[in-house]
C-alpha cells in the first residue's frame, strides 16, 4: 500500500518586513492511506501551516520555499507545491479530493447564507449535477453526520445552530464530495467535552465508512490517543518524533514527547505531587539559531545539541525520532 501524501523536506517561510520567519523548517512526512495521522504540537509550532500548505492555502506573506508535497492519486503523482493555488487543477483537488475542517465552525461558515446552500454550492462546484440532485445529496450527507432533522433544518442559518451542530455541518461539507484526504485542524477544540465525544465518534465512523484518510491536528494528547493510528509530534516547525500511537504513549523517545506526556494533569494523577513541567516557554520560530530547537528546555541536553541539528531518523523499525540520544 503506497502513501497518499508524501511530504519531503518542506520549508515554509513567512517574509515579514524585518525578518523571515521559518514556520516550517524541513518536514518529511508520509500519510498512509485509510489511516488517521495525528499531528500534535503546541500553539505556534506550525501544525496549521502544514495543513494549509497541503491545501495550497498558505496566507500571504507565507511561501513554500523548498520541498515537495506529492499527492498520489489514480496511479499518478502530483506535486502540490508546483501547482498555482488559483489554477483549475488545484480547484479540482481542493474541496473535492482533499478537504478540510477548521477549528472554529462559528467563523468558518458564511453567516449570510444558509447551511444548505453552502453545502449545495460545494457539490455544484465540483460535480455536474443539478440543484435538486445536489439538495438530495446534501440531505443524505447531513443525515449521515447525525444532523438532527435535516429536512426541516437544511435552510437554517449558522447563527441558529449550536457549536456541535455547526461542526457537523462542516464535516458534512468536507465529506460531500467523498474526498480521499480529510484534514481536520483542531476540529473539537472549540467544543464542550460531551459534544467533543460525539464528534470524535462520528469521525471514527466516517473513516470506516468512507475509507477516508484523515490528518487530525490537535494539541490534546487524550484526543490523539482515541483517534490516531500514527502520531507525529511537532515542535517549532519540525517533526521531532513520528511513531504508531501505541509506541508514542508506551515508549516515547524524544524528551519533548516525554515532557508533554508527563505534564498532563490526567485523571489518575496523584494530587499531592506537583505536576512535572517542561521548563521555559515555546520559542518563536527562528529564535534558536543553531542546534536542536528544544535544547534550552531539554532536561537531557548535551553540548552537541547546541551546535548540531539532529535529523529525524529511525530509532526502531517504525519509530522515528530526531534526537542525538538515539542516533
Amino acid at each position, binding site marked *: 500500500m503506497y502513501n497518499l501524501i508524501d511530504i519531503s523536506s518542506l520549508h515554509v517561510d513567512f517574509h515579514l518586513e524585518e525578518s523571515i520567519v521559518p514556520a516550517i523548517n524541513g518536514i518529511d512526512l508520509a500519510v498512509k492511506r485509510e489511516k488517521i495521522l495525528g499531528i500534535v504540537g503546541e500553539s505556534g509550532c506550525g501544525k496549521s501551516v502544514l495543513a494549509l500548505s497541503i491545501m495550497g492555502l498558505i496566507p500571504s506573506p507565507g511561501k513554500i520555499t523548498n520541498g515537495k508535497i506529492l499527492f498520489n492519486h489514480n496511479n499518478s503523482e502530483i506535486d502540490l507545491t508546483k501547482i498555482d493555488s488559483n489554477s483549475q487543477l488545484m480547484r479540482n483537488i481542493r474541496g473535492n479530493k482533499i478537504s478540510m475542517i477548521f477549528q472554529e465552525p462559528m467563523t468558518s461558515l458564511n453567516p449570510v447564507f444558509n447551511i444548505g446552500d453552502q453545502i449545495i454550492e460545494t457539490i455544484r462546484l465540483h460535480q455536474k449535477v443539478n440543484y435538486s440532485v445536489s439538495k438530495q445529496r446534501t440531505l443524505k450527507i447531513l443525515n449521515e453526520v447525525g444532523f438532527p432533522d435535516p429536512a426541516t433544518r437544511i435552510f437554517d442559518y449558522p447563527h441558529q445552530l449550536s457549536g456541535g*451542530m455547526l461542526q457537523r455541518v462542516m464535516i458534512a461539507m468536507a465529506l460531500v464530495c467523498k474526498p480521499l484526504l480529510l484534514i481536520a485542524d483542531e476540529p473539537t477544540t472549540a467544543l464542550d467535552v*460531551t459534544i467533543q*465525544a460525539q464528534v470524535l465518534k462520528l469521525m471514527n465512523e466516517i473513516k470506516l465508512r468512507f475509507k477516508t484518510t484523515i490528518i487530525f491536528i490537535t494539541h490534546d494528547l487524550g484526543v490523539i490517543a482515541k483517534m490516531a493510528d500514527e502520531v507525529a509530534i511537532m515542535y517549532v516547525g519540525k517533526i521531532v518524533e513520528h511513531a504508531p500511537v501505541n509506541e508514542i504513549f508506551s515508549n516515547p523517545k524524544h524528551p519533548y514527547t516525554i515532557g508533554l506526556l508527563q505534564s498532563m494533569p490526567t485523571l489518575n494523577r496523584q494530587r499531592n505531587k506537583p505536576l*512535572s*513541567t517542561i521548563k521555559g516557554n515555546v520559542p518563536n520560530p527562528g529564535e534558536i539559531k543553531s542546534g536542536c530547537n528544544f535544547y534550552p528546555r531539554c532536561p537531557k541536553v548535551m553540548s552537541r545539541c547546541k551546535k548540531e541539528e539532529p535529523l529525524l531518523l529511525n530509532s526502531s523499525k517504525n519509530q522515528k525520532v530526531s534526537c542525538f540520544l538515539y542516533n
Partner: protein
Amino acid sequence: MKKEKENILIEVNGLKKYFPIKKGIFQQTVGQIKAVDNINFKIKFGETLGLVGESGCGKSTAGKSILRLIEPTEGNIKYNINKSLQLDQKFSKIDITKLTSKDLRKLRQEIQYIFQDPYSSFNPRKNVESILSEPFIIHGFIHNNDLKTKIHNLLSDVGLKPDHLKRFPHEFSGGQRQRIGIARAIALKPSFIVADEPVSSLDVSIQSQIINLFKTLQDKYQLTYLFISHDLSVIKYISDTVAVMYLGKIVEMANNENLFSNPRHPYTESLMSAIPVPNPKHNDDQILLKGDVPSPSNPPTGCYFHPRCKYAKEICKNEYPPLQIYDNNHHVFCHFSSSLQLRPLL
C-alpha cells in the same frame, strides 16, 4: 460542630442571577435567562472548590456574582473576614451582597479575581511595573517606601525576573501573562481568589507550570480558591471539593475523592466518561450524551438533565429533584441517586 463552622471562609446561599430578555420597541421583559439559579456552597479556609461544567452553564457568572462584578439577583454571600479593613459594616462575618460600594472596594484587598484571557485583562499601554503597582496605589499604599521591594517579591513569587518590569503585556507569552495576572491578584495578600478558567488558554507544557504555581502560592499564603474550569482533569488535580454545574444549577457536590470514586449524578458520570484518556489501549465504552446543552432561557421541565439522561423516568420530566445528602457531605440533585449504580472514574 461549632469549630467546623468557624473554619468556613465563604458561604454562598441561594445565589441567583437572572438576565432579563427584552424585546420590542418598548423593551419589555419577555423572559429570563436563569444563568445562576439558586446555588449553595461553602468553602473552608485554605481549601479549593472546583466548579466544573460545560460552556454556558453559568460557572463564570457564579464567580463574578460572588465578587459583585455582576450584581446578583438574589441570595446572600457570607464572608468571614479576619483582617481589619475598617469597613462601615461592623461584623466579622459580612454579607457581600449588602456591602456599600465603598466597603466593597475595600473588600477587594481580600478577594481577587483571575481572568481566563490574561491578555485582554491588562491595559496594553501599561508596563508590568505599573500594572503591579496599581493595586497598591488604589488601596492607599502609595507612600510605602518599600513598594519596589514588594513588587520584586511578587515577581519572584510568580517566577518572573526583575528585567521583565519594563516590558508591556504584548511582549510576553501566554503563560507569562497569566503569571502577571496572578501576581496582580496576590499583590495585596488576599485570602480568597476566584480563578476563572486560568489555564484553559495555555499549552499543555505551560498549563502544568501554572497549576503548580497555584498550588505553591496556596501553601505559601494560605489562599482559598474558587477554581472554575471546564476541564475535569485540571479540577481533579487542584480541588478539595468539586461542584458540578449544569444549566445554572449545581447538580452534584462532594469532596474530590468521593465525587470521582462514587459519582451519584448521571451528568457527572457522563462528563467523566467523555474525557479522552491519553492512553490508546484504554477500554473504550464511552457514555455518549445525546443532543446539546439546552438553552438556559428555556430549560426543560422537571430535571434539567432529563432529555439527555439515559436513566430518566417519568418523574424526571415533571419534578426538579430535591437535594439529597449522603455520607461525607455528598450533595446530589437526582431522583434516583440512591438506587443508581454509576460508573466511577476508571
